[in-house]
């Protein structure tokens, strides 16, 4: 088909609304209010090292917890019958379709000082515990919101593992544990790397979860950026510099993960 030109409008659109804005971020990050070149903004980001470290650390912890919870679940799902598999996928996706603000709000009501959990503990005469406005609460919120992003790619890759390959391993003397470690695990590596990316990227850049569950004391990179653009600290130049740093962090994470995943798989997973 000789219809190369039908893509032209989209190329123009991409140039205007995808590429130009990112170039603007780059420009803003390296200029001051008068439009002169400066690296002031970038060096200023250094003052927030503790926030950067906290963001990466909390996102990493949440990602690992997601992986630990999701891995056995995805495997169990992948060995079910087709209709049960469909039901399970639906059950996993259903909470994902609820707006994440509502999901996070739900945990607010559960974790707060006179919330449901503390009342429950009260029945046994313990507590109340400080659960809301802690780093633990932020991690919990991340795990809860992004767990399906880990389960689904793992499940997609595991469902492709032929039952006969697993039987072949058993036939050759591998115990269930050995089957898991020497066949299922290596074959699911692309799913693991996709899952890690899909959980880590939104987790490290979130600003709502930390604001709602972390209180004021647990600022993350996302909160910093938000403060520079819509907050009291209005400074789009610094905000752009922080955004740039965030993109670099994510690019690093993704290039590490890309070593393991197959490009083809990832494309399929995003859909």
């Amino acid at each position: 088909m000789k219809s190369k030109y039908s893509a032209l409008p989209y190329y123009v659109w991409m140039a205007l609304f995808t590429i130009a804005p990112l170039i603007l971020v780059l420009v803003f990050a390296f200029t001051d209010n008068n439009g002169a070149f400066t690296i002031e903004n970038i060096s200023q980001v250094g003052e927030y090292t503790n926030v950067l470290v906290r963001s990466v650390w909390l996102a990493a912890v949440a990602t690992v917890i997601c992986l630990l919870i999701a891995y056995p679940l995805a495997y169990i799902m992948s060995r079910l019958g087709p209709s049960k598999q469909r039901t399970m996928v639906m059950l996993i996706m259903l909470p994902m379709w609820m707006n994440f603000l509502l999901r996070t709000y739900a945990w607010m009501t559960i974790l707060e000082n006179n919330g449901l959990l503390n009342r429950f503990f009260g029945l046994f005469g313990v507590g109340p515990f400080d659960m809301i406005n802690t780093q633990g609460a932020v991690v919990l919120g991340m795990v809860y919101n992004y767990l399906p992003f880990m389960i689904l790619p793992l499940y997609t890759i595991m469902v492709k593992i032929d039952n006969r390959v697993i039987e072949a391993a058993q036939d050759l003397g591998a115990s269930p544990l050995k089957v898991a470690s020497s066949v299922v695990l290596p074959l699911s590596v692309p799913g693991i790397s996709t899952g890690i990316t899909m959980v880590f990227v939104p987790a490290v850049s979130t600003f709502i979860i930390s604001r709602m569950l972390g209180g004021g004391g647990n600022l993350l990179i996302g909160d910093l950026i938000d403060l520079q653009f819509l907050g009291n600290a209005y400074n789009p130049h610094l905000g752009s510099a922080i955004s740039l740093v965030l993109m670099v962090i994510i690019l690093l994470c993704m290039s590490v993960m890309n070593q393991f995943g197959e490009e083809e798989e990832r494309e399929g997973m995003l859909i």
Partner: protein
Amino acid sequence: MSTNTIISLKDIVVEFDGERVLEGLDLDIHDKEFVTFLGPSGCGKTTTLRIIGGFVAPKNGDVFFEGKRINDLPPYKRQVNTVFQRYALFPHLNVFENVAFGLKIQKLPEKEIRTRVLEMLELVNLKGFENRGVNQLSGGQQQRVAIARALVNHPKVLLLDEPLGALDLKLRKEMQIELKKIQQSLGITFIYVTHDQEEALTMSDTVVVMKDGDIQQIGTPEDIYNEPKNAFVADFIGESNIVPGIMKKDFLVEFAGRDFECVDSGFTPMEQVDVVVRPEDIKVVPTIAGHITGIVENVTFKGVHFEMEVLACGTHWLIHSTQSQAVGASIGMQIGPEDIHIMHKMEE
């Protein structure tokens, strides 16, 4: 052939979702034998194999291996290995690692693993392929890896589940001969599942013909071919003319409107029977010399012989002959006493 039994199945019943797949199957398999389970799809042959491998638990009945009941033994503790349908190679491992898998599980020393794997790759003609990825191999090569992967563990019994099903005809023939050679040189039991009767007849010591979860006949390939027990076996094992007849007395049968001498006896006089005549056993002769006269309806050249459809006495007969006849010609058909096989009617 040794007569000691290595595997014995007793009254095996298998159900999937309430549907009976095997109905009280009894079978003894002898040591060092090449046994083939033969039958159409859905006859329960693969299920029987998977019971021996440990992948299907029978609802009822016992599985014995060298006299010990192994019903509750998981697959990874059984001394049998399987060559799976479409191979089931580990896609993340190369040829060497695939073959070495079982030995590594047994935690054998590296050196021994290496020698045994290389030895086995040589046996299956894959020397020099150690470092290839399994997805870079042709179907025939993948097949050889699957066989090597199973055999390297020195199983007492090798189970093969339609191993040649995905190969083209020429390759199949080569592999058939090669598999038979391997079995003879290793001197172990092969249990082979196929729906291809020719494959079963060329390779096996014993053929087990199955249908609807039941064994129809067990015997040597010659027995099965020459003395099929019923019309199903006769029809499934090669093309046959099966016509109704009446056994008048011992050594005399009536079919196609006249009496024929035959070599069968022991039927009740005047019993309704099925008469089997192989297409290649009907001789084409001039009309006067024939037992039956027929009209040639159709002729197809099949490479080594002509296949003719002949209408005679209201029945369509299949005849294989090296000489072609004109369509519409009248021919005589001659059938000798030893070419006639009499079978009891199958109760449907």
